[in-house]
């Protein structure tokens, strides 16, 4: 049944939009707004996919991603990264950190859905 998606994002309206989109597809969406303890929250909630913002209060998305990749339990966890800083350098940094998919804001809703679907599907196949 419904896959579990964790959305780490601090902008309220964006949380609202993504939650709306993913819920309609039948996925269970949880949200978290603080960067500082995001890694712990992810570890404990064991989602199937993390949608991660870059500019978070407390800790940057890149750092969180690195921590996830450094932990065996979450090394393969699909992470879709969203950022409003659309510079190529950010994309490089994200890929280096081991992101599964990288998207810049503003995004197209269908693209986000497709990306989430892909990631969940691939992830599901592999496990």
């Amino acid at each position, binding site marked *: 049944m419904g896959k579990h998606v964790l959305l780490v994002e601090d902008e309220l*309206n964006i949380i609202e939009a993504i939650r709306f989109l993913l819920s309609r597809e039948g996925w269970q969406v949880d949200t978290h707004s603080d960067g500082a303890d995001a890694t712990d929250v992810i570890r404990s909630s064991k989602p199937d996919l993390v949608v991660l913002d870059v500019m978070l209060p407390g800790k940057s998305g890149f750092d969180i991603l690195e921590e996830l990749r450094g932990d065996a339990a979450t090394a393969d966890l699909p992470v879709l990264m969203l950022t*409003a800083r659309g*510079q190529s350098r950010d994309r490089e940094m994200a890929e280096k950190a081991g992101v599964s998919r990288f998207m*810049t804001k503003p*995004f*197209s*809703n*269908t693209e986000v859905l497709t990306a989430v679907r892909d990631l969940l599907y691939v992830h599901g196949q592999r496990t």
Partner: protein
Amino acid sequence: MASLNALVAVCLAYVFFLFCVAFAAERAGVRGRARWLLRSPLVYTLSLSIYCTAWTFYGAVGYAARSGLEYVTIYLGPSLVMIGWWWIARRLVRIGRSHKVTSIADLISSRYGKSNGLAIVVTVMAVIGVTPYIALQLQSVTASLSLFAAAEQGSLTDADEARAAGFWIAVGLALFTVLFGTRNLNVNERQHGVVIAVAVEAVVKLIALLAVGVFVVWGIAGGVSETLARIDASDLGTWEMDGSRWAGLTFVSAAAFLCLPRMFQVMVVENDDERHLQIASWAFPLYLMLMSLFVVPIAVIGLDLLPTGSNPDFFVLSLPLSQGREGLATLSFLGGFSSATSMVIVATLALSTMVSNHVVMPVFLYLHQGGATQSGDVRNVVILSRRLSILAIIGFGYIYYRLSGGSGALAAIGLISFAGVAQFLPAMLGGIFWRGATRAGALVGLGVGFSVWVFTMLLPSFGPDAILSAAVFDHGLFGINGLRPQALFGIPGLDPTVHAIFWSLLLNAVSFALVSLLTFPDPLERLQGAQFVNVFDHSGQTRGWQAPVAESEDLMIMAQRILGAEEAQRLFQTEADRQGNGGYLPKPTADFLQRLELELAGSVGGATAHAMISQIVGGTAVSVQDLLAVADESAQMLEYSSQLEAKSRELSQTAAQLRDANAKLMQLSDQKDAFLSQISHELRTPMTSIRAFSEILRDTDGLGPLEKTKYANIIHVEAIRLTRLLDDLLDLSVLENGQVTLNQQSGSLVDLLDHAIATAQASEARPIAFKRRRLDEMVTLHTDLDRLSQVFINLVTNAQKYCPAEAPELRIVVSQTGETVVVDFIDNGSGIPAASRDVMFEKFSRIGAQDGNGAGLGLAICREIMARLGGDVSYLDGTGGTAFRVTLPQSQALAAQ
């Protein structure tokens, strides 16, 4: 008489020939032709042969006839000097060239701190030492003339005629020297005419002596073996050698070779190329050997053939005459004539340079105080003074000759003269080899040596009771036994000549060394000392001038007067070009002044040039650094390395500046990146919501009206946020660029605050209580009220938004300290952490994450506005809550009264 006339005619023809040669050489020199000859080592070597004067030409034979082989010492000394050229001669030539030394007096004065006093002492000593020698030359020519006449007529020509001949010879020589010796003002420019004439005369005298020798050996004696047999048979064959005399005479002739003004002139001043010295080092001894080859045979044969009582000094002449060989005798006479004239010319030239540069010019400059900068050509004065000096010196020689009346005293004058100028040796050699030598030492040494020489050699040479009474000879000066002129300190038994040489030079050297050790050289002296002693390590110049206040124009005027307009302009132009500043006047840098001084030194001598420049520049200053440089053995190395250090310091400074600039650029670039990144983020964030919800509204079926309204509202709010952000950005950009135009108005602070609070409350729903004392706010302001209001609104809104207190409250406190109005906005919140206070006025800085709505530009804008208005906004510490203080600038406060 016919033959004598013929001789005079030959003489005149010979002199005319010499004039022509000198003239041609001068012309060729000016046009730069025939350099191969004019500047050849051959000419250099031949010009050195002015060492062989009439005294050697005629006198060597006489010397041999009287004292056997001892005459060789006169040739041995110079030969040793030349063979050992590497040690002394080369050093002298190098110093002479690099310092443009004009004479031995100039050399010594330059070495000891460009002291003109020393130069005068040396000049006077040289004149006293050399003038009798010039007289000797005049005497030898007239004597040989009268000998000729005697052979013709069987009787000696009367004294008047000889004197007349002597007079005309003196006039001729003076004329020649004036004509060819003062063509160039700069003594360092070669006097080609003189040098070539001297070289030609050197050839003539060598050929003459060799011809007589060949005639004597093969013509009279009948071959080499017969000659040798005759020599063996004579007294001369017995080898009597007085060691002390040999050593003393060899030494004194070597010293004289270096110290005689005329030798210094040809060896150092006229030297064109140091390499010539290398060739002369073997060629000149060879010349001397040839000159001395036939001396003994001529002496022996002469003693054999000529009647006893005939003067052996003129065997060279009287032998051919007695054999009826008039042609040969004429040649021989020309040889002697050449020896005499070349010596007189060069000696006079050298002495006149010294007298003119060190006595006449300083006096002239002293009399014309400040005259160095007057317009007009001093060159004429210099040349005139040199010409007058020539006439005076030859005049002295002639007078001396007339007074001594051809006495026997003249015969000894050669050696006496040698010993006299040899007194320069300690000061000179000490100066070029010993850094510790001082001016005082040189002065005392010269004085002592010269006095001893006068007392033990010059005065006694006139014979007992001539100047010194016989009593002085026997019992010493003032009856002190230790002061007997030929047995100083009561030590008798020494040969008088050796005695004089020994004591004068010993006392000279000892007092020179002692006083040098006891005195301390002044800075310029030390500097020059280092330059002279280490001449091979560095041919650089003393860097003495340190006063760029000198005006180039004055220098130019002075230089023109000494060097001539053309030469001076060329010099200045070259320097100006080198310095790279347009125009024709260079900056009077230390380097340039140094070069200029050197150029002037070539014309008027080191001391005078130094004095002239210091007259304009105002004296030299020797800096501490210079002293340090001198103190160290490797003075120049230090200076060089300090230059390098300065350069590298400069470089590293530049590098540091570049690093700083680069760091700043990097920082700016980083800031720009961060700024762009921030803007991107701030713009994209509301856009994201707008796009996402608009797509939701478009694509999602079955949305309830409530949801639709909610999502449309989000889009609306985000769009407003976006607009506000853009407004703020533009506002900030305008403020930062200073393009804002202030709209000055008058209004009251109360109204302004009322308006701000009303506006803030309208835009922000969150309630906050205001605490004000309206009475304090009754202040009239004159400023851009709209902008100030913008600041107030921002601060009030911030408090409304971010004050975390349960019952938020904002106190607005207005106070006036002096003429400054201060408005404080204090809320009852938690305050701002110290770490954030530094950055909170920066763009995009947001404290905490309570609200994602602000872009973090508000405070940045406030700060910019207050800066434009001439006031300030700052965080107010210590109130418990968050507090900002707005300070209105004084002018506005004044307007408020």
